[in-house]
Structure formats: C-alpha cells, structure tokens
C-alpha cells in the first residue's frame, strides 16, 4: 500500500476530503483511493482536521459563542433530550466533540468573575470525567471523548504513544542493523541543546548520501508539516550535525526535499534497508 503520494494525488485527496461530511471520512476515502494505505489516509484526515481546527478554533470559542452553546446545552438537559447532546452540537457548530466539551466545562466551572478556571482543573476533569460534579455534563463529555480521534486526553495519549512506539521501533531496527547511535535521552543527559531522535555516532550512507542523524515522525509529511519541522527541528539538527534523515512513517508528499535547497535532509517512509555502514576492517 502506497504511503508516498505525488503532489497531484495529494491535491485531489484534499479536494475530496473537503467535500466529505465530518464522520467516517476515512472509510469514504478508502473507496476513492484504494491504493493508499489506511494508516496514511487516517493520518491525512486527522491532520486536515487539526488544520481546520487551528483555523477556526479561536473564532468558534469566543466567550459569546461559548455562552450560547452552554445555554443550548443546559436547555437540552432541561428538555431531557437523548444523551449525545454535545455530539450533536459539535456537528452543528463545527468544533470537534472534545474541544466543544472542553469549552463547556470551562464555562461550567467559570469563576465568580466569569474568568476561566485553572487549566489544570479542566484537564484533570477531561482526563477523569467521573470527577465532574454535574452528572449530565460528565456523561456527555465522556461520550465526546470516546468519539474524538484528534483531541482530548485519550486521543492525545494515542498520538503520543504512537510517536514513541515508532521511536522505539526505530531504535530496535537500528540495533538490528548494528548501527551505533545515541538516542534523545542520552543526548539530553549529555547536555545537547537540540536532540534528534537518533544521533548516529558513526555515520551511515543512504542512497549515496551520508547521514548523521535520524528523526522519526509518526505522521504524514505534507508541506506545511514539513516546513514546521524544518524550522523548529530539522534545520537545527543540520546546523549542528550535518546531513540527516527524517522518517515519516505514515508517508509523505513527493519532492519535499526540494525545499531544503543545499541542506541535505533525506525524507523516507521507513528505515532504508540499503544503509551503507562505515568500513571497519583493518
């Protein structure tokens, strides 16, 4: 199943994505792009959702709109509506369920001066909804969290876990290939200011190019994502360690390497099998 997309395919995929309703988009896309890996599609859908939320979250959560949504919610409770009130509201306003639930909780726990409650409190409540004093809000929130794959503590934990799993997987693969390296924790202990996931203590060559470090990314590399990483991480690694490799485990759009100009940072969707190790015979 393909994970590397050319720009055309990617664009048409984004096009279709915009036209689809919010729920079950992965399944619909699967039918449209049967040749693509499901994980890649999931990833693209999730990233599209995050992009959308980044754009509209602020607008959708002004105090006025939250107040209106809260009113609506309490009304629905009074009216004894079926459970799933927040889920329906979420579809209506375009916020993801978990983000909506969070806003409602913030409103519910607002302080006397109408300011927002402490962040720590809200996130504790989101993590353990049983702690919410209002039973309906608690249950509704819980339903939202179960439904949201992008936001909320469960989704966050999943994402974080996936990232770490691939990191560990990469380390093990490298060990299997007898590549010697330091990983993030080592580097941090040694006081490095920037720490790639893997710093090769002995460089290896991939497709004729020497690499000195590897960064693992358990997501799909589109241009926006990649530019962000270049700025915050990859160029910093290049500045310190020279050419390197970034692995987007869920695929990437072709030709992103062009962005780097003369700074060589390879992009792959798995650990290359054809690594050339340094000759260590005497």
């Amino acid at each position, binding site marked *: 199943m393909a994970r590397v997309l050319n720009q055309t395919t990617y664009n048409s995929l984004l096009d279709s994505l915009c036209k689809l309703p919010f729920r079950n988009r992965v399944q619909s896309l699967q039918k449209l792009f049967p040749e693509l890996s499901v994980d890649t599609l999931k990833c693209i859908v999730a990233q599209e959702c995050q992009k959308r939320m980044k754009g509209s979250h602020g607008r959708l959560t002004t105090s006025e709109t939250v107040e209106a949504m809260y009113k609506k919610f309490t009304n629905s409770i009074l009216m004894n509506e079926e459970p799933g009130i927040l889920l329906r509201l979420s579809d209506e306003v375009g916020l993801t369920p978990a983000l909506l639930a969070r806003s409602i909780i913030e409103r519910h726990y607002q302080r006397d001066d109408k300011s927002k409650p402490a962040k720590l*409190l809200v996130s504790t409540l989101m993590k353990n909804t049983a702690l919410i004093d209002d039973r309906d809000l*608690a249950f509704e929130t819980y339903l939202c969290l179960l439904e949201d794959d992008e936001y909320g503590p469960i989704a966050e934990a*999943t994402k974080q*876990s996936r990232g770490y799993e691939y990191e560990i997987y990469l380390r093990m693969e490298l060990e299997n290939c007898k590549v010697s390296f330091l990983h993030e924790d080592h580097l941090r202990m040694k006081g490095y*200011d920037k720490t790639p996931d893997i710093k090769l203590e002995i460089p290896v060559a991939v497709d004729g190019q020497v690499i000195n470090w590897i960064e693992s990314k358990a997501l799909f590399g589109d241009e926006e994502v990649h530019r962000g990483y270049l700025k915050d991480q990859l160029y910093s690694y290049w500045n*310190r360690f020279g050419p390197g490799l970034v692995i987007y485990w869920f695929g990437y759009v072709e030709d992103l390497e062009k962005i780097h100009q003369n700074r060589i940072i390879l992009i792959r969707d798995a650990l290359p099998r054809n690594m050339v190790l340094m000759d260590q015979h005497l």
Partner: protein
Amino acid sequence: MALILDLVSGDIALFHVFTWLDIGSVHQDLKELLKDESENIRYSFPQLLIAFIKEQTSSIVKLHNIHPYELHTVASPKRENLLPTVNNLSLSSPSPNFKNNGSCQETRKIRKITPQRLDLSSDSAFPSLQQSAQTREIPKKRRINPTQLIESPVTTRVPLQFGSCSRPSPPALGHNAFNQAQEQSCHKSLDQERALLKEKKHQITIPTISDLGSTAPKNWMCVEPDISFVTKLSQLDRLSALCSFCLSRNLVPSLFSEIQFLIQLLVLRVSPAKLKQTHLVQSLLDSVHNCVYFSAKTLEHLEGIWCHVDQSVLQQLMHNPRLLLFCPEWTNDKLPKLISSITNVDRIPPHKTVANVAFQTETDNRFNFASDSSFQVFRKQRDQFCEAWQIWKVNSSIPGWNMSIALQKMIQSLVDLRRDCVNYAHLARLFRSQLLNVAQLVKPINELEEPDGPLGQLQSSDPDKLRRLRDRLTNPPESRPARCVGTENDIKMHFEGDQEFFRDFILLAASPAFNEHLKNSLVSGIEDLSSSEDCDDRAQFAETVIALQVMAKFLGFLHFYPHASADHLPEHIFHHLSRLRISQREPIDLVSYIKDAFYKGRLVLVIPWVVTYLTLADPVSLCLPGFHSVLCHLIFVYRKAELAPANAFLIRILLGWLFSQSNFPLPLLAKPDDDLLIEFGNLSLATTDDQLPRLDQSRLVDSSLIHQCCPFLWSWKHLLAEFACSDAKNSGEKASVSRKITPVSAEENPSPVKAPAVKSLQKSLEENFFHNQPSSVKRTVEFVAERLASNVVRDVRHQIIPRLVLHAQATLKTWPSTAKDPVESLCLQLCADVRNEAASAATSAIASIESTLTALLPNDLLPPVRRVCVSIASKLTQGKVLDWIQLHVTKSLFKNDLEVELAKLDKSCARRVPGSPTASDKPQVVHDPTTQAPSFLIDRLKTLIRQVIRDASKVSEQDLIDLLSNCEGTLHRRVDVTPIVSKCLQQLTFDLLFIVCVFQPESIGSQTIIAWVAFWCKTYPSVDGVETEEPVQPPGALISTCVWQVLTPKQLLLLAQSTSPRESWNHVTTLLLQLMKSGLVRYKDVQEQAIAVVRQEWPQELLGRFATCVRDIVDWHRNQKSEPNLSTSESCDDDGLLSWLSWFCAQDDL
C-alpha cells in the same frame, strides 16, 4: 643612476658587483666607481637598479597599448576609460585590479568538442556590444566581441593549446578522456598553425598603418619585437644579469612586482603610429625590441622562481611568441622539462565537504553555560546565525538583493539576544568556526555551481566569461548590486566570495561587545594554530595556513576598520592621527610571533598570516612606532631567513607583496642588515625549544598552496594571457574579477614571562627527565594523562553525579521534616560522596595507564624510564581530576537539583507513575514486540467502551479475560509505554470494567473483578506514606483526583441507566470493596464521594441502592476495625462515617 649606467656600459666583471652586494667586500675595480659610499649604497643599490630600469623604460612604456586594433573600433568613451593605461603598469604598487584574461584557450576547447555549445558565444545569443572586425581565419559565425573569449584568428596564440592546460587555478584537467581528445586535436593542427605563425610573423615585422576604412583589418597595429633590431646588446645583457642577480638574491624589495613589471615589458605593445609621433628620449630601453629582449633574458634567468609557479603560468610563458623568438632554448627545452617535472601527485586533496559547524558536547553542551536561560538563548542564536548564513548563501548572488535590508534586523537581534559574556563568547566561537569552515570550502576560482548544461561547461572552461554573460543578462551596468557596505575605495577591506557574509555580518551587527569577543576568539584561534603540531602532511598544513590567514584577515579587519579612510590623508591630519595612536596596543604581538617563528623554524606557517594581517593595516598604523619593529623584523626575515626553496618562495613573495603596498614606509627597506639585526635582538640568545616540529625545512608547500595564499600571483598569468588574447581580438572590455590579497590577521599577546618560581626538587627532576628524553615522550605522557583525566571527569559528570543526585532526591522524600535545612546538609554529603567516587574512578582509570603508554612510547625506552612515565602520567591524571573536583564539585552544583525536587515534594506531586521509562528503580524490561502496541490498545478500549454505551454491543467474560492479559502484556513487557499512556490505560480499563458492570452485569464472572483489581494493584500501586494533598480547588469542585471513582454523580448516572440494577449494584459494590481491600481506595475517599453524591437530587430508588452499597462498605470497615492487627491509621475516620451514615439513613426513610 649614473652609477648603474656606468656599471652597465663599463667592463667591470659583474662577478665583483655580485660579491659586493652579497657580502660587502669591494673589489679594486669597483672602488673607483663607488667612491667612498660603498656601504651606503649597497643596500639601496637594488632599489636604484629598479628605479633605473623604470626610468629607462618610462618613455616607451607610456605608449603601451594592449589593444592593437583600437584604432579600428568604435569604442565608447566610457569603455575607453576602462582601458588600462600606463598608470596601471606601476612598478612598485601593483593594483589589485589585474585583468583576468586567462582562459582563452578553454573557450576554444569548448567549441571544438561540443560544437552545439557554440551558440553561447554566438552573435545571435550574445550580440557583441561593439562592432567587430571579421578576420580571414574566422568562420563567418564567429564574432569578435569585447569579451575575452577568444578564438583564434591569429596563429600566434594557437600553440597555447598544445598539450597543456592552463586554467587559472590549480586543479588541472587532463585526466579525463575529454581533455585527451582535445589535446590530440590540437596536436594535429600544430604544424598547420606553425606555418601560419611564420606567415604572420613575416607580416608583422613590417608594421603598416591601415586606414580606418579598411575592410581587411588584419594588420597589426603594434611594433613587433625582432631580435635583429635590438641595440646595445652587451649593455642589456649586463643589466639583465644585474637585475636577475638582485631578484634571485631577494635584494629587491618586492619580487612580485618586479617580475610583474618584467612581464609587462615582455608584452609591451606600442603602435608604430604613436611611436612616430613621439620623440623618445634616448636610453638603453627605448625600443620595444630592447625592452622585450631585456625582459626575456632576465625572466629566463629566474629559474629558481619558475619551479614554484603554477603550471598554467609556465604554459603561458612557454607559448609566448616573443619568448619563443628571444629565448628559444628556454621555451623549447627547459620550460617543457620543468613543466613535466612538476607533478600533480601530491596535490592538496579536495577540500572538506561538511558545511556545518558540528555541535561538540565538550564545548557546546549545557555545562558550558552559566544558566539554563543562557543555554536556551544560545540555542536560538545558533539557529538564527545558521539561518542568516543560509539566507545569504541562497540570495547573495541575486542582483538587487540587499543584505542589510534582508538580514540586518535578524543579525542585530540575534547578536544581542542576551547581553551576556558567555553568549557573546559562544557566538564568537560559532562565527569563527563557520568562517574557517567556509574558508576551507572555498573552491578554486574556476569551479562553480553549475555542473551540467552549457553554462556549466563554460563554467569550467571560462568562468570569467560566464560571469560577464550573467552580468550582461541580469545586470545592466547601472544596476550592479551595491555592496552592503564598503565603497570602491577601500579596496583593502575587500573580501571575496563567502567571506563577504562574515564581514557584513560584523558590520551589520554593529555590536562592540560581539566584536570584542570575536577579536579574542580570533586571537586565541591564531595562537592555537600557530603552535599547532599537526603539520606533518601537506593537506593539514595547507589547511592550517589558510585558516590562520582567514583569522588574521578578520582580526585585521576588526582592528583596522575603524581607522580606514577612503581619502588620502593630508599630512597634518596624518600626524595628528598618529599622535593619537602613538601608544595604541595591537591585539596581537606580531614581533614575538615572528621572532619565535624565526628561531623555531616555523616562519612558513607564521609569515603568511602576519602579512595578511598587515595588508589590512591603514597608512597611519604602519608608521606607528609599534609597527616599526614588526616591519624591520619582516625585512630581516625577507633577507636572511633560510628555508626550503618552496617555503622561501612563499614567504618572500608574500613579504614582497606587503613591501610593495603603497602605504609601506619605503625608507625601512634600505636599512642595512646590521640595523635590522639590532631590532631582532641577539640571535645567540635564542632559546631552542624543540617542542614543536620545525617546518621551514620541510617540503610542505607546493605551487597550489602558494597560489592560494598569494592570489595576486595569478596576475602574471593574466598579463600573459591577456597578451595572447588581445592578439586575436580587436578590443574588449577587460573588466574581470580582480584577485585580492586576503588580509589576514593578528597576533597574540606574548606569553607572560614565567616568574622564577621555586620549584621542588622533584619537579626539576621531572623536568630534566623529560628534557633528556625525545620530546614525543613528554607529549605522549601529557596527552595520555589529559585524555584519561577527561574521561574520568566525563564519568563523574554523566554517571556518578546524576546517580548520586537521583539518590539524594529520593532521600529527600524520607528526610525527617524536622531537619533544619535538608538541602544544605544533603549537598554537603553529596560533595563528599562525589569526591570519593571520583577518586576511586580516577584510581581505576590509572590502572590502564601502563598498557596505554607501553603501546605509545618508543619501543626502545628502558623499562625503568617507562615506569617513571607511568607514574608521572598517573600523578598528572590524578592531579587533573582533583583540580576539576575542587573547582566544580561544590554545594552549588547540587543545590538547584535538590531545591527543585524539594519544591516538587512541597507541591505534593510525588506520586510516582509506574511504567514511566525514567523511573530508575524499574527493573529492566525486555521488550516483547508480540504484545499489543499501547496506541492500539487505547484505541481498542475506547472503541469497546463506546460500543457498549452507545450500541449495547456484547462483551463476553472471555473478552474481558483476553483484554486483561493484553493489558498486562503491554504494560509489563514493553519499553515504549510513556507515563501519560500508562495513566490513560489505567483510566480506560477502569472505565471499561465499570461500564460492563453497569450495562452487562451478566458478563462479569466471579473472578473478573478480583483479577482486574489485582492487575491494577500490581501495575498502579498507590504510594504509601506520602499522602497526596488535593490541589487547592474551588469549593465543591473536586474531591480527589484518583482514578478509582465509583460513587460519583457520573457513575451513578450510568448506574441509573442499568437494565438490571440489582446485579449492577452488586458488582459495583464488589468492585468498590475490592478496591478498598487492596488499598487502592481509602475509606476516606468513599466518604467524600458519597457526600458529593447526596448533594444532588436523585430518584429514590437509586438512593436506596446507594444506601445499601454504602452500608456494605461501612460494615466491611467495621469488621476490619475489629481485627486486632489492623493498622490504626484509619480508625479516626470512624466517627465521621457513622454520623454521616445515620444522617443518610434518615434521608432514606423519607
């Protein structure tokens, strides 16, 4: 002048003159001539000689015109201004703007090999700016335009092709099939071309003036020299002999400019028309014939020089038609031999390919910063610096791009991001490293960035043309990109290529603090490299020389830039300024460097950077008393230093270049040796310190390094090539890249004089011991000790200290809270512990010294000597470790860590999360890849819960058992479970079990709940002893953050939806009881949860079941209490619960 004329026309044996010049003894014959002034004249004689030659040639040189066809061209006035005039042919101050014309033949090569590329230079693609004259030999398509590309209507130039490569820079072609093919093709046409040459020669010996309207502009417009027209042969021979003697004995001040002048004479071209119009003063060198003869003879005699010059220069000489005529023996026989003897075998290998400055833990990690914020800020500074550099690299060649607009803000903000000495120092270091990196990357001049395509071809053959083509296409003359800084006038502050970035960075940053740190960094860099020991191979040596030059150049720039002026300073201002600066201190003590280098035989390393540094000096500086001594030293070195031939050539050509700078105080050059010797101090006092390898006699320098250090040398080739080119063309714009000398550097303060300290006997024993051993022994011992100590320190830093700190942090938790200052006393103890452990680490490291030293020390060392070495090395190692400990292992080292931990404890967030990969006490887990990935498990649980709640999907008892074993596998046998994930799984498994209890009580088997609780107990043990205090919350908001919430409103709401409430409640009660039994939930927690529940309204039925559940709990608790061995901790809760229960029951009755 008369003296020289007498000498030349007289018959005194020149041998006597040479002796006089050499050692000062005056022969009888010479005495008359010199009268009484022999000593006075001796040192100024060479200068007189040069002046004489210049005078003799002045009238004819004035007529020089390099463009023989000029009369035929319609040149714009503007263009004419660009033409070189006689003023450019200066004798003693060569302008750096030499014309770069050296690539004619390559252009032709392109045409021969790849005819389709021809259109690059075709009329249609690049129409000539001027009317060109067609010539007989030129195919119609060809144009003659003002660019330098030549093609060769004129046969004189053709032999240049033959079997040679004469690219303007060291890397020669000639190793690929391409070039061979080409050489062959040249070969074939050689005879034919020779024939043409003869014909041509015949034609030009009779100069004619062709009229302007002529359509056959083939005629030469200049006098062609002919050996038969040379007059005063013997006098010219004597003059030439004198001149070549002075040149080869380094008696003239500037070898470079004199040879330059000779070459200019060789290519002298004078239009016969002008010659007729002008009345020439009668002199020895008043005709082209004489000049060329003199020049050719003199050049021929400078054999010692030509062997150090780049092959391409020799090629040009060899094919120069005039030399062919005047010195056939030299050009046909000796030169080819010389060229073939110069091998390219041990050329400097290709430059480094790594373009970034590597992060080095030794110098760049957190330990090298005073605070976290300093460290974090520098991380940003490093990235921004690299970013600025990248932006510059990408954009600087784009016309109209302006660095100050694009980068000034960024640079200024990054440089002063944190006004702190540590950050400035690190930034300066980074700046220097990047600069050196780039300097080593500098490509030979004709290698450019487009490897393929027609432009790439042109690139490798004629970069200058490519540049001009580009300029013409993209850049009309008026809109040449203005340099960010610097005017045309301050040529000396000119930096080439990538170095411009660094210069402009300094100027744009405009940060005095940064400049100061950069100066320090450069000075110390120069000091380090100047005493570098790794000069054994050529590549390393060349790298060092170039690095030194670059650092010196920038140091010079920083130091002299404030004093630069584009104007000529009037004398009174000049004096005023020099008075102001009379006691100015130089950033680097050049004199001691020169002296040191002289005595230690390292001039070849030091002189290049000293010259580069001084080349940047402003006129006032060079006249300051501080510089007087420096210059005298240099002159002395120029005259007296004895080095291997190539080394000597390198430093003499550099020094000569310096002496020929316009602001060099000339009178110094006429000083007698003795005066200079006084400056130099007593030679015999020199202490010989053979620590460092002597370099002056080693064969380290080759012509490519010479040309890299002295880019101005290319001007010789350019002159010759220009001659060859313009032979073939009517005219052309010759603006080309001027080669500049790269000004370099600065010196260090002299090492402070060691105070005569009282040394212990042992110490002096040791000193003597090493003194009488080969110097490598001491170096080895010191090196081994240094490395071992550094390893021990690393161990202490990265292993011992973190381990002990971690341990101490753990101790902190159990520290009696009554202790006054737990941090203080713990710190003290930590210091002691670290010291002890470090000492034992050092001891074990020392154990390996013997074997190490045995392997490294000379084999023939006596065993006792080796033992002494081992003991010294051990002592040194131990000493170094102790020093480090004394300095660094202090209370403050730990204070921060412990205080942070204490603060954490105070916040009571100390509940450990099991499964955390950082937990140090966690047993080593062997990763089992067959277990389910945590993200997969989370997803599965989440889906399951959703399905049970929303879709009433069935979950069987077996499903629960499977899930349990999956969870165990994931949480206990994987290494990729993060704390957050572990916590999330805890919540989800609990939620699932609770929900199944509520919605599908039939799936809960007798052992299900017990098994799950046991699993949680094992995986998420609650921490005894440390009671977590709930964070301060708004009243009524939260009771406890614990995961195991059974009786909260949400859970009751779920219970209210149960279809078989009795079973559900039974299970939930069991669950709660099990949780309490296992200690996961405390009695107090239940109490609080229950209170929260009854604050809300509930259906009466639900409350009844709730009451039953609570009663069960209370009963269980009572039983527990009656057990005698129960811990007493919870007994105090009893009353609260009882009173609450009675109140509750009353409600129930309602």
